[in-house]
């Protein structure tokens, strides 16, 4: 079947990409300045060269980088061992997983709202082209898209906390830390409002602009004229023939965005002291915690690859022509 062949091909490409990313991730932290052993033992402590060398041997750093260290690392990664964080002295995988859910929650909500509102705004603006609504939505989107993440975060933080008494940071209030999730849900939601809003506004602009141009292009197609000639109302034409065709470029953009989304999360989580991956990456960077950074990069890269695969898969349902090629 054509769809299966197509998907197998795409998976092959994904696997190749993954291998390349693993290599890059591995190499990146080998060429960075700094000595892992020194980082472990600390800078100001005097330790004999013998002890340092035995530590190197223990970490496997005495072996050549290629192929020994790389193969060794791949094997460890495959078993889920991403190493031990230098700053926290805990397994990297454990740290990542503990932060992953918080970030997924934030990204998920932010993306969900920005996609829904961005698509709706773009669709309406394109449909009502050159009306005050279109011009207003266009202006808003351009400003939202051009706004620096951290700046918008800070402004919303100030405004939200001063005028609406919303919390300025964290995921739950200090008193609620460690309590079961369902008991602190209202508190959690209050904490999520500002970061989610920042997220939504930032991505809404981009989605709106792309959806608008996509629907404008679609509405100029011949089959739209056919649909109107059939006696459909403009709204029916828009929903039945315009939306699906116009959504095709959106799927690609959304999938690609998932990667950038995480970098966006670094700013937002830092501004709102939100305890997620973005914040973790920032802290790890400041502390030069290479194993933690390496693990985080790996996770981000894999999630981008998976998101792209999902998009390819979705495409086979949205656009029948994809299967033919």
């Amino acid at each position: 079947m054509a769809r299966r062949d197509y998907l197998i091909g795409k998976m092959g490409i994904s696997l190749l990409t993954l291998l390349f990313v693993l290599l890059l991730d591995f190499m990146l932290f080998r060429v960075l300045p700094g000595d892992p052993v020194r980082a472990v033992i600390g800078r100001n402590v005097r330790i004999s060269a013998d002890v340092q060398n035995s530590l190197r041997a223990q970490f496997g750093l005495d072996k050549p980088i290629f192929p020994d260290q790389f193969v060794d690392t791949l094997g460890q990664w495959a078993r889920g061992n991403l190493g031990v964080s230098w700053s926290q002295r805990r397994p990297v995988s454990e740290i990542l997983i503990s932060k992953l859910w918080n970030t997924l929650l934030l990204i998920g909500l932010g993306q969900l709202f920005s996609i829904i509102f961005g698509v709706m705004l773009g669709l309406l603006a394109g449909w009502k082209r050159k009306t005050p609504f279109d011009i207003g939505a266009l202006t808003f989107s351009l400003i939202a898209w051009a706004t620096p993440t951290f700046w918008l975060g800070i402004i919303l933080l100030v405004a939200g906390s001063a005028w609406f008494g919303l919390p300025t940071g964290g995921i739950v209030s200090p008193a609620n830390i460690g309590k079961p999730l369902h008991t602190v849900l209202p508190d959690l939601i209050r904490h999520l409002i500002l970061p989610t809003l920042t997220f939504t506004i930032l991505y809404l602009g981009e989605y709106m602009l792309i959806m608008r141009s996509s629907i404008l292009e679609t509405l100029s197609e011949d089959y739209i004229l056919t649909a109107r000639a059939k006696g459909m109302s403009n709204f029916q034409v828009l929903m039945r023939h315009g939306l699906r065709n116009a959504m095709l470029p959106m799927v690609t953009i959304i999938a690609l965005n998932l990667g950038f989304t995480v970098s966006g999360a670094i700013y937002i989580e830092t501004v709102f002291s939100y305890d997620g991956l973005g914040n973790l990456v920032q802290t790890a960077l400041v502390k030069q915690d290479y194993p933690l950074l390496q693990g985080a990069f790996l996770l981000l890269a894999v999630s981008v690859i998976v998101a792209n695969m999902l998009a390819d898969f979705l495409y086979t349902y949205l656009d029948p022509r994809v299967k033919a090629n």
Partner: protein
Amino acid sequence: MNEKPLLRVRGLTTEFATSEGAVARALEDVSFDVLPGKTVGLVGESGSGKTTTLMALMRLLPASGRITKGKVWFNDTNLLALSEHEMRDYRWKSMAIVFQGAMNALNPVMKVGDQIREAILLHDLMDRSAAEKRVRDLLEMVGIAPARRDQYPHQYSGGMRQRAMIAMALACAPDILFADEPTTALDVMIQAQILQLLKEIQKALGLAVVIVTHDLGVVAEVCDEVVVLYGGKVAEYGSVDRIYNHAQHPYTQRLLESFPDINNPSETLASIPGTPPRLTQLPPGCRFEPRCHVKINRCAEVSPPLLEVEPGHYVACILREGKEANFQ
């Protein structure tokens, strides 16, 4: 003309706003009749207003265009006086259209059968299962295996897409079928098949057809009456016999000479020197005057009225004699 026309187009005039801010008169004072079961051909060069006429009749002009004058009587209803909502009832149910080549006229992400069924269900003509049966019947009628209703347009060949488009146009059993260059973009064998199909269907269903084409061979083959458009105005209008054998307008005469004759293949093809008028800068007199080979001084000053030179044969040329046309 003892039979009552199905469609009476009277003084149809459209204006387009161009990007330079000028107004283009794409159509001016276009009048003709469509009789039940007959075929009218709209002929002319590119930009002469053929397609604009069809779009205006269905009230599907692009946003930059509008109908400024005229009436379109469908039976006893003036379509131009209807609200957009009322007009939607007439589209596809009374008048359907087959677009050029049908390359992109079908939605690429929708199954062909679903696109046909959509038209039937939209007008509440029958329930879902009856509509489904009709889709299959229609496909069979145009020579497509009903099993292919679940395929997408890209899985069809160009000729099949055009057949599917025709099947779709027939879905709601319209009284009039508009065909906008239905055979352009198809190769010659397929062109002949599609024309044959149109003729068969017209005969079987008693459809009135308005066909837009620049191919005079097509006109000779399928049309009963011909409207020759030049620069958005009717140059000549009459039966296919009158137009082909007794053309009165210099433009029509030149147009016919520029068409190859299979009986005299050695004859060199005539072309008409000059270019069609720009619709934003129309000459004050006859629109064909700058290119005309028989013009007199007055042609540049007076816009020629449409004259009835023979019963049912109209010519817009001051060099001909006849009484001024007065359409009912």
